[in-house]
């Protein structure tokens, strides 16, 4: 029985005693209601059917994968005998052209681009932000300051003392995530190494704020280009800024990353324009860029804050940058 399940033991005993549960099926159902899933010891083990241990594969996640269906001989995939013949594999000649293609090559479907589950279940990967720090890093990055708190008595008294008519009660400012966040995910070649980190962060934001408050937009080079993709609509459509006050989180390098042969040197001219548009619309922009501050423009654009996204980033760094939250709406 796991540590978490032990915490439920008191509740389980209480429920079984109080309800006078007599049969194993009911006891098992009660355990299920209390979130005890794989009870592996104590009395529960007597109730549950014996489980076969799942094979442990190094470098993979614990999640069990379904077994592959039996393969049809004519499916067209390469067979071991194909590789026995040197000409049957793709080989690049000195001139740079392929000298031979195996018979299955023409029939093979091209790789699907970035299926999420494939990326998530691939080789072992170490995230830039540790799992236990992720929630606070994200929370401190996207929360805003709202006048939703308790009554601000000093401001109220000042208004009364000055004989101003009070139309709206002044309230203290509190941190809130109710505005949600728009996440801009850079799908450019220079960010290919950070795909899983991007997925980790967007998934973390959805878990933290709820899917209904997270809008994910994919772009290459800059979101002002026409080929942005929203995750909920597969078709490309023009980019639109979120409602005023909603923070924008960019998971990209602003074109400053290494290894992007298709990108111009330095940030695109579009970024200052984007920053001005967002500021004019009342949106703060936070850039999580895996590029140190020394690289790139020394002057920050208005309303845009760049955070070095690396393995030593902690909630404290983010808290130092943003304090108790962004302004609800930029002035």
């Amino acid at each position: 029985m796991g540590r978490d399940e032990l915490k439920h033991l008191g509740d389980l005993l209480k429920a079984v005693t109080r309800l006078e549960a007599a049969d194993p099926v009911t006891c098992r159902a009660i355990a299920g209601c209390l979130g005890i899933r794989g009870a592996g010891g104590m009395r529960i083990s007597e109730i549950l059917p014996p489980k076969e241990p799942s094979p442990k594969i190094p470098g993979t996640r614990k999640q069990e994968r379904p077994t592959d269906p039996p393969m049809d001989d004519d499916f067209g995939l390469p067979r071991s005998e194909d590789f026995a013949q040197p000409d049957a594999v793709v080989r690049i000649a000195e001139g740079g052209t392929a000298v031979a293609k195996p018979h299955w090559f023409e029939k093979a479907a091209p790789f699907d681009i970035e299926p999420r589950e494939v990326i998530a279940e691939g080789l072992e990967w170490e995230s830039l932000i540790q799992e236990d720090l992720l929630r606070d890093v994200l929370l401190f990055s996207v929360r805003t300051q709202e006048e939703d708190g308790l009554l601000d008595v000093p401001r109220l008294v000042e208004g009364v003392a000055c004989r101003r008519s009070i139309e709206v009660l002044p309230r203290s400012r509190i941190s809130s995530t109710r505005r949600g966040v728009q996440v801009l995910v850079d799908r450019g070649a220079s960010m290919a190494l950070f795909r899983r980190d991007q997925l980790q962060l967007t998934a973390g934001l959805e878990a933290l704020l709820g899917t209904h408050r997270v809008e994910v937009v994919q772009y290459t080079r800059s979101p002002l280009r026409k080929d942005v993709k929203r995750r909920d609509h597969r078709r490309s459509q023009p980019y639109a800024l979120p409602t005023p006050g909603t923070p924008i989180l960019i998971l990209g390098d602003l074109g400053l990353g290494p290894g992007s042969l298709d990108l111009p040197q330095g940030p695109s001219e579009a970024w200052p324009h984007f920053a001005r548009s967002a500021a004019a619309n009342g949106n703060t922009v936070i850039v999580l860029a895996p590029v140190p501050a020394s690289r790139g423009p020394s002057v920050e654009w208005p309303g845009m804050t760049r955070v070095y996204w690396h393995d030593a980033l902690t909630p404290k760094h983010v808290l130092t940058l943003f304090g108790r939250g962004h302004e609800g709406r930029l002035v």
Partner: protein
Amino acid sequence: MNEYQKIFDPTMTAKPTSGEEVERRGDSSKNSVYAYTDEIVLAVNVALATQRPLLVSGPPGCGKSSLARAIADNMGRRNYEITVTSRVELRDLVGRVDHVRRLADAQAGDIPKSINHYVEPGRLWWAFDPKGATQRGTTQRGNPLETENQAVDPGRQSNATRIEEPAVLLLDEIDKADPDFPNALLVPLGAYHFHVEEIGAWVELQGEPPLILVTTNQDRRLSDAFLRRCVRLEIPAADADTLARVAQVHFSGEDLKKAELVLESLGSTIPSIAEYLDIVRACNRLNLDPKGNQFVQILEVVLGKR
């Protein structure tokens, strides 16, 4: 799976007679009936036995929210409901001071009164201590307020005859709240007391603990600390058998026959329970034949939103 002593046993619920279909009030009904399954009954009993909140999840329209009212009616308990939004905070549940009214009174030259006159007790306060909530707590000298200033029970229509009974409290759609909101509930729901910050008062549970139902559409993952304190119930999406059972519970006589005809006409289309009941009600009230041509239009109107 019935070999246990039920604290909550819904088998005594009266079924409406023909032509006496349940009167509707939005998503709730005046004399609510509910198609319970063994799993639902067990989960409610476990929640009552362990005195833990019952976290109910499932697809929209499966009967998460209406379960609270059905339990309250069945057990003769007081019923309170609050729909959680991103702006809801703990003080909306426990109680807040109506500063605007207080300021207006002060500016109108009224004699300054105790701040307790302006306390609006929240649903949690009503569920824990209805007498204290009626008196808006006590003044700093420990005296109750005068009768004319007493607060009014937000569920007075259905609770009038159950004032001495424990409560059922529904926190609907908790996943819409700020991420910290569920954690703010840990102490009130675990220790059964809370602090009303604005008046500096502690409110403690009087009598039997309320049954607290928390619903979620699973838009967001709730914290482990919160989940650990909850009894969990997942209501699955309805299938044809479920809808047939729902019809049996909600209708009788001619209405039941029509409900069964509707189910036949739906074919492979399986709506949610709420949508199915809407279709049957529409057919009953508008005297539409479920086998007729206009039935398709009814489906489009009711299911077109999906």
